[in-house]
């Protein structure tokens, strides 16, 4: 259920589906998806510096909980 940094490498079908389930769970819980962010940077901002996984995590978590209610009663 890990390996968020290694998505995109061609692997067996099992590895792929584990990764799919992983990103599904991450999205449901509102967790950062580093691999998807790298993909976004590569596509839209090829010249921008790439943050480390830790930098991205810190930035994501900080901004998520500053932005209005994320959870209901």
């Amino acid at each position: 259920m890990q390996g968020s940094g290694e998505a995109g490498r061609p692997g067996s079908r099992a590895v792929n589906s584990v990764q799919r389930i992983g990103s599904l769970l991450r999205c449901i819980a509102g967790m950062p998806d580093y691999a998807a962010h790298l993909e976004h940077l590569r596509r839209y901002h090829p010249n921008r510096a790439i943050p480390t996984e830790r930098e991205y995590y810190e930035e994501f978590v900080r901004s998520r909980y500053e932005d209005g209610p994320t959870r209901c009663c």
Partner: protein
Amino acid sequence: MTLKHIGWLLLGLAGAVAWGVLALHRGETISAAWVVLAAVGTYLIAYRFYSRFLAERVLGVNDRRATPAERLTNGRDFVPTSRWVLFGHHFAAIAGAGPLVGPVLAAQFGYLPGTIWLVFGVVLGGAVQDFIILFGSMRRDGKSLGQMAKEETGPVTGLLAMVAVLAIMVILLAVLALVVVNALKDSPWGVFTILCTLPIAILMGFWMKIWRPGRTLEASLAGVLLLLLALVGGRHVAESATLAPYFTYSGLTIAYGMIGYGFIASVLPVWMLLCPRDYLSTFMKIGTILLLALGILLVLPPLKLPAVTPFIDGTGPVFAGKLFPFAFITIACGAISGFHALVASGTTPKMLMRESDARLIGYGGMLMESFVAVMALCAAALLDPGIYFAINAPLATLGGNVHSAAEVIRGWGFVVTPEQIDGLAASVGEQSLLGRTGGAPSLAVGMAHIFSSAFGQGLMALWYHFAIMFEALFILTTVDTGTRVGRFMLQELAGQIWRPLGRTSWYPSTVLASALVVGGWGYFLVQGVLDPLGGINSLWPLFGISNQLLASVALCVGTTLIIKSGKARYAWVTLLPLAWLLAATLTAGWQKVFAGDPRLGFLAHATQTAAQVASGALDASRGARLIFNDRLDAVVTMAFMVVTVLVLVASAREWVLILTRRKPAKAEESPFVETAYAG
């Protein structure tokens, strides 16, 4: 007629038959299957036909129009997300303790009123609100409800909406915290398990940030496993004569502990405590709700609660007030919840890949929450009515011990023996279940019944504490994230008075705002714990009223959006639920303040308390505090009502101006951009 039509016709018939059975059934018990069938049949029909009408005719969903997730994509909050994944994300955000607690409390009227309101309230009200606000926010680059109110109806309305949201937050946090206090008081097992979540969360926090940055899933998996270990460990603590006293606390001590926790969680960096707890509780929540659904569908338990109890006349012990209006404010979340309008105008609109996805996520997501509430109602209704009232009536009403309780409950016409009450408490590993008002314990007993019949007998106590742990865990998560959100709102408001107070990175401002928010809900919490009527009696209606009034504000905004987009002829889709909601909520608010019955009206209770003090039956200082609290509750209720009426008047003025063509019908939407996605 095609095959497809015949399928829908049959489904409609099945739902109608189920409603008929529910309405006409006379007898001891009825299978939960009928409730489930009636609910699901209605949801599917409403989703297929009504939500489609809303999407195509009223809102004009257009899949050629690029969503904010596509236009503003940034790989962080604006991320195009496939619709079923986003459905899960949105559902996890809207489902909380509300839909579990409200229906359990409203079960004092019987299972039928709650079921009818949950199902018809959601398809005509709650799901409509969520869908329209989600859609409106999506058309405005993910703006919040407050910002939309400000832009569409003016700055005063925007400010009022903001103040209302903050006030609701304070009441919400207090009442949810009270539910946890009532579940955990004098329960070493529960307290131990919940205390363990703190070190587990901190461990996860360091794991995800320092040791293995970003590995959120593996840390959460470890967290869930540790939590289950703590649950099993709790039994040994509760059974040990040396350890149990260290974890046995009165309600008041637990309340102060939670207040301290809320403050610390609000000023600590989020990664350390708040975020890992959020992950932990989300996975527990999804897992447990799936388990509950599976259990109910496997067992289809017989419901022992009557369809309608005599307490619809307002004499019920759990909370005061007649069926109308109190069923409709006791059950807020699950039928219609104003709080959803905040979430539906938060993270979700920034992630929609296509406009048409808003239908599944906004309307469909709310139907799902309503179904959770229906299941919670079933879990409460499967209990013997006598047991249900033993758990939920205030201790003072029950006379303090199982013998007096059995006597009192017999007087209400329900049969229960002292041995049954004691036996149940022992089977779930508690000293006593009497007077644990608040919904969580009776729901946990119901869930424990279902789980142990579905997944093997003999683990009743473990299942009970599993259910308590899961409810307490995500209520505490609401408490800490809510305190933090309240802190940011307060800082934003205070920044308009003195600029430095608005800087969220300035430590004195952070500490001050956190202390004020925690102090606000903490005050109401302590008031609830000390309340001789059990606290839930006064605080839950206050929460219900505030939440429904926020829903009214959201429906006002929704109506404005519809009228401004030139679709005034369809404005009834929001005006109809708005009218019903205002009728129920303003009546309830009025009765809570002015009713002559001291159990119901805050002011009448203050007068009664004053008389008790005068006659020497009550200590003067205690009496003065009770009177102050009654008056405070009355003022807060009136303030909610006034704010809502002001928003309604401001909105109605806007509607009239547009309809009489003195103002152009022009919505403040972001300009159209053609999508780049293939159709």
